């Protein structure tokens, strides 16, 4: 009884299997077409994934030729558009003490955050000698840097005139420019011997600390503006509607002869915004707070109160703004 049944079952299964095999071969008219379609689909997915994948931080930069930039009077196109000056536009600020902060009795426009402490209006700060840029960093100078860092190409406005201060850059980008310039100065035969020696002795190109900036802006006599105690729209670009090319308001009266320390654009510094008394050893305190960096000097759009040498603004390190730029220093930390 059972044998015929198993034979029948086996035949039935075999028939079903044959049918299935036949069906399979009928349903696959051309395997090559199917495989081709699948391969194309996989390639499409791979390309799409590559395009969609989050951008990884890439340290590699491609060396690109410097963009052809028009010559700018007073700047050296073959030396990264630095000023055509004896020290490539760097001005030495001698070592020594200076008065930092504001005395509201002498400066009626002083803000509260310029007060040294609860019982002192101003303080005295001693700093070593250093070099600071005669002008704010220009768009032409920054473009040479960007040409070697294509990842920044979209971040820098292309339509800005070469001798205008560079603006709309973030705090890390300003530092990156300074590091790049240091490498250039260290390795170039165009670097003046004085700067070369200073760099070899440990000098570093950076953005100024706020004490360096303030000393360069007002010297040792505690003046309110770089040129003295009386406001002058002829010596600085403020209270206006437009930014000007660097050095457009020549200021021979300004201490150390620096240009645009007041107005034109705010200049970011490497000092975190903290209450006075100023002490660079405090810079690593308050790490739990959000970063905010001091900016100095005011801009073309500010009133006279914000272009005083002691005024202290604060800027978020990621901010890009058309009133904020920077200048560089070479100092020994």
């Amino acid at each position, binding site marked *: 009884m059972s044998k015929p049944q198993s034979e029948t079952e086996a035949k039935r299964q075999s028939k079903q299997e044959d049918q299935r095999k036949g069906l399979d071969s009928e349903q696959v008219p051309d395997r090559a077409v199917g495989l081709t379609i699948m391969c194309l689909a996989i390639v499409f997915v791979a390309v799409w*994934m590559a395009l969609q994948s989050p951008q990884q931080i890439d340290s590699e930069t491609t060396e690109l030729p410097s963009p052809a930039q028009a010559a700018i009077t007073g700047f050296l196109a073959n030396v990264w558009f630095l000023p055509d000056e004896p020290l490539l536009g760097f001005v030495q600020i001698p070592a020594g003490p200076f008065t930092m902060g504001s005395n509201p009795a002498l400066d009626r426009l002083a803000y509260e955050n310029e007060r040294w402490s609860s019982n002192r209006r101003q303080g005295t700060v001693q700093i070593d000698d250093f070099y600071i840029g005669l002008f704010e960093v220009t768009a032409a100078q920054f473009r040479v840097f960007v040409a070697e860092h294509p990842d920044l190409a979209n971040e820098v406005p292309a339509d800005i005139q070469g001798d205008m201060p560079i603006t709309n850059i973030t705090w890390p980008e300003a530092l990156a420019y300074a590091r790049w310039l240091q490498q250039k100065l260290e390795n170039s035969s165009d670097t003046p011997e004085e700067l070369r020696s200073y760099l070899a002795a440990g000098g570093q190109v950076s953005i100024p600390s706020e004490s360096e900036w303030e000393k360069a802006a007002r010297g040792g006599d505690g003046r309110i503006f770089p040129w003295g105690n009386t406001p002058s729209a002829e010596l600085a670009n403020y209270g206006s509607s437009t930014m000007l090319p660097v050095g457009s308001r020549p200021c021979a009266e300004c201490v150390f002869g620096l240009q645009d320390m007041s107005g034109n654009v705010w200049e970011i510094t490497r000092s975190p915004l903290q209450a006075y008394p100023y002490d660079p050893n405090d810079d*690593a305190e308050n790490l*739990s707070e959000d*970063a905010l960096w001091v900016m100095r000097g005011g801009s073309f759009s500010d009133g006279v109160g914000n272009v005083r040498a002691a005024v202290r603004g604060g800027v978020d*390190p*990621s901010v890009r703004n058309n009133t904020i730029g920077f200048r560089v220093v070479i100092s020994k930390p």
Partner: protein
Amino acid sequence: MAAITLFGVSALYSASTGVPYFLDSEIPAAVFLGLHLLITDPSTSPRTPLGKTFFGLLYGLGVFGLYTLLGAMGEPTFYDKLLVVPLLNLSVIAIDRAVRSIHSTALLNVWKESWLGGRANLAHMSIWIVIFASMSFLGKTDNKHQGDSLPFWEQACASDLSNACGRMLQLEATYCADNAAWACNEIGAHYREGIITASNQELSMAYFSRGCELKFQAACLNLLDTELVAREVPHELDLRLLLREGGQNLMTLSEQELVERACEHDWAFACENNGA
């Protein structure tokens, strides 16, 4: 079979190395449900019962392998569970053919549908529900997962467990890309120190820049001084990203709840703060 294999090999890996294989979860619940439809579609899955079993087995192994492969290629690893599907669909005929070429009746009949009393689908669904419920209950789907806990990987890396330092860097890079400033600073610090990975100053500066632009003060200081390695505990916004357990950012949690959650995830500073 797919879920069992995946869970099995993952468990085997964890048991042998001491660290989880997947950084997020074995199978997120949504993917678990989606896969049920994707790999059981009758027109794109094998027809023989044994072929179906192999299909599931290959799927589990394929996901396991693809996860490492995608990670090594720098591609998003969340494609691991999907990319296997078309590859297996391509192999359906070959699987069926291979199964039919087996001449062992015992092996071919190892799985008899008659055992299920003609209710194969009901039985399959029951098994599937039990597996899904078990994995969910064990926290292998969307719950808190050890693999996305940075304190765990820090500890594992310090203990020199298999590939732990690499996975920690991978996880930090992912969180940094998601704008967790703390993670950017940490990974920058690792590349500067050159202890758990090869030193790469340019890469470290790139990560510090990103951390600084996200207002992490320690990262800014690290940018200023190339000899420094400043560190700081995660800020509130970082915690909202770091503790999300693969879900949405925790934007609505109160600060106190965040700290409590951080402590549950073994962040020592949070437990100290919580205790205080």
